[in-house]
């Protein structure tokens, strides 16, 4: 085939009882991202541009757990991770623990293409971002009401548990991407 693209918006326990209106929003989000990738590849664009643009679209969609719409940490903030890899050169870039970069995958691509390194974390990743032109936002930008309520329920459940061991077990039971 001349070109091909696939994308995902997370996996886990997804209730089939979702209201039709909610299902429609998810399908529309997937279709929108797929269209972005199609336009890049159909016009002869690179696979790297396609995957970055598609992931940017999903990061900007509050339905998905990345960028705007990211889940809350135990501290009630948002910490974002991303990576990108070019199969033709084995070049790779990755960032973790970002708090103010609007589209983490774009910073990962800059790390890959413009630095001598592969992986920046936390404060260092934010400092590296300061040296680039990536768009920055307040951490609150990533906040969505749905994720906030999900986090509040998690906090309530966690505080209801009596020992550290049972709290850890509860967290393990809820690990999904």
């Amino acid at each position, binding site marked *: *085939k001349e*070109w*091909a*693209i*696939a*994308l995902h*918006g*997370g*996996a*886990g*326990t*997804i209730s*089939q009882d979702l209201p039709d209106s909610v299902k429609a929003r998810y*399908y529309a*989000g*997937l279709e929108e*991202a797929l269209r972005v990738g199609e336009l890049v*590849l*159909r016009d002869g664009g*690179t*696979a*790297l541009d*396609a*995957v970055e643009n*598609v*992931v940017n679209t999903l*990061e900007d969609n509050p339905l*998905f*757990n*990345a*960028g705007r719409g990211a*889940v*809350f*940490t*135990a501290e009630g903030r*948002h*910490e*974002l*991770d991303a*990576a*990108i*890899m070019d*199969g*033709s050169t084995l070049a*790779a870039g*990755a*960032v973790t*623990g970002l708090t103010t970069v609007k*589209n983490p*995958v774009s910073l*990962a691509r800059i790390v890959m293409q413009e630095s001598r390194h592969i*992986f920046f974390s936390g404060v260092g990743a934010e400092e590296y971002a300061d040296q680039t032109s990536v768009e920055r936002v307040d951490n609150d930008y990533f906040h969505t009401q749905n*994720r906030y309520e*999900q*986090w509040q329920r*998690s906090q309530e459940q966690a505080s209801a548990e009596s020992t550290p061991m049972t709290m850890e077990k509860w*967290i393990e039971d*809820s690990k*999904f*991407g």
Partner: protein
Amino acid sequence: TVGAVALDSEGRLAAATSTGGMTNKQFGRVGDVPIIGSGTFANHVAAVSATGWGEQIMRNVSANTIANHMEFTGSSLEEAMNFVVTERLNPGDAGFIGVDSLGNISMQMNTAGMFRASLDADGNRTVMIWQ
């Protein structure tokens, strides 16, 4: 978590993944997404992006294992991804999307669902959430 994999008209493969992690994650916890070879990997054989239980995906170096399985055993992308999903990981652990150098696409998971979509130059289009 979100991700994308692509093959372009010059035969180049690429993979990208981005995530907010897991709800209520502890200070400094990092999952598979930014770990090259675990949640994100691309070479001349295949491009793969993962989503799911990060620790399990990391323990199995999952994305790289799919590409290596293809390269070292001659298996197809579908077969290699199925090997990781069914023989390396446990039910409920993860989902993957992948594309190989011929433009074959595979999207598999052992979770109840995975938001996913794909398209190729021949017009084969998929948009799915559940099995």
